[in-house]
């Protein structure tokens, strides 16, 4: 695991930028990266349903702090600009953001990261809640990711009644196409995904011989990383982040 010591140089640049996404649109994005020539691995950080918010800025910087080129596209770009909660409210009313839109924004971010001179050409994808689902979907439908992290992604298993024009296919139906190792972190008190949903996904991954690692935390519900929400659970959150960094180090870091 990549470790910092008190005698080493550390620097980071974090700023908003742009990237080409769905439909050729130039969308804005938050890019945090360690300073230096690299080579560094990358992570596309897909923000959650509550929006392209401060928490996701922090998570993006956390990846950069650990030595990753971390790129978080604003997947709500097309709904207009305002405070993250106002934009998220508009997205909620509009029935969410379309899967195809998120996938192309994610693919644009992946391409951008791999094009950088300081990239080691290894890129992962990360998401929580709705974006955990989208991270899984990206790992199945896009080629080029080297690791994926799905934190309590709800709606991977969907009934026919839950399908919509924006979400026309249940992500679990793409499990056979998973193209990279997958880490899944879940809580056994979560209502979506329930432990049963996680079990169904696991069975599907086993069926197709996929490389995955799932952890189900006891006494944890939905969103147990969110320190500003009542569902925060300290032990699972600390352990979960450790597991994430161990996992992505294994699949994204190349020896320098």
């Amino acid at each position, binding site marked *: 695991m990549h470790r910092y010591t008190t005698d080493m140089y550390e620097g980071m640049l974090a700023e908003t930028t742009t990237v080409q996404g769905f439909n050729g649109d130039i969308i804005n994005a938050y890019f945090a990266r360690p300073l230096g020539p690299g080579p560094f691995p990358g992570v596309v950080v897909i923000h959650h*349903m*509550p*929006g392209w918010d401060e928490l996701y800025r922090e998570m993006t910087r956390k990846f950069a702090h650990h030595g990753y080129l971390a790129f978080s596209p604003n997947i709500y770009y097309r*709904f*207009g*600009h*305002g*405070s993250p*909660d*106002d*934009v*998220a*409210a*508009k997205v*909620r*009313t509009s*029935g*969410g953001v379309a899967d195809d839109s998120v996938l192309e924004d994610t693919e644009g971010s992946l391409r951008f990261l791999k094009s950088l001179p300081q990239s080691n050409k290894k890129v992962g994808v990360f998401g929580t*809640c*709705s974006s955990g689902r989208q991270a899984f979907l990206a790992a199945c439908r896009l080629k080029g990711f080297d690791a994926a992290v799905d934190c309590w992604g*709800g*709606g991977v298993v969907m009934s026919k009644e839950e399908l919509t024009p924006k979400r026309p296919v249940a992500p679990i139906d793409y499990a056979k196409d998973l193209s990279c190792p997958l880490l899944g972190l879940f809580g056994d008190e*979560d*209502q*979506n*995904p329930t432990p049963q949903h996680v079990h169904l996904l696991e069975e599907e991954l086993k069926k197709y011989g996929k490389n995955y690692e799932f952890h189900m935390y006891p006494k944890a*519900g*939905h*969103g147990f990383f969110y320190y500003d*929400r*009542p*569902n925060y659970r300290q032990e699972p959150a600390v352990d979960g982040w450790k597991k994430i960094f161990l996992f992505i180090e294994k699949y994204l870091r190349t020896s320098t």
Partner: protein
Amino acid sequence: MCTGIVETAEVKGSGKGPNGWFKLEEVNVSYDHPYDAPLEHALNIDFVNLKMAVGARVAVELSPESARKLAETILTTLARGEDHMKNSEASSELG
């Protein structure tokens, strides 16, 4: 969990947002993660005007119990108000 449960209705009236009063056109009621209220799920009410910027919004996030109290209180107050108006009209006809 993200439920995606939203109901929408047209409304007439005004709301006071961060930039003052504005004309309301729609109310969106959802049962989903709140942004600020310390609850896993909340009954979220957004009064909006989609012709204006996304910030034209009056928002509340309520616990389910509070939302029920609000709905009952609105209906009670509305019934009292409408009774009052009917009685006033009847008095003026008699007078």
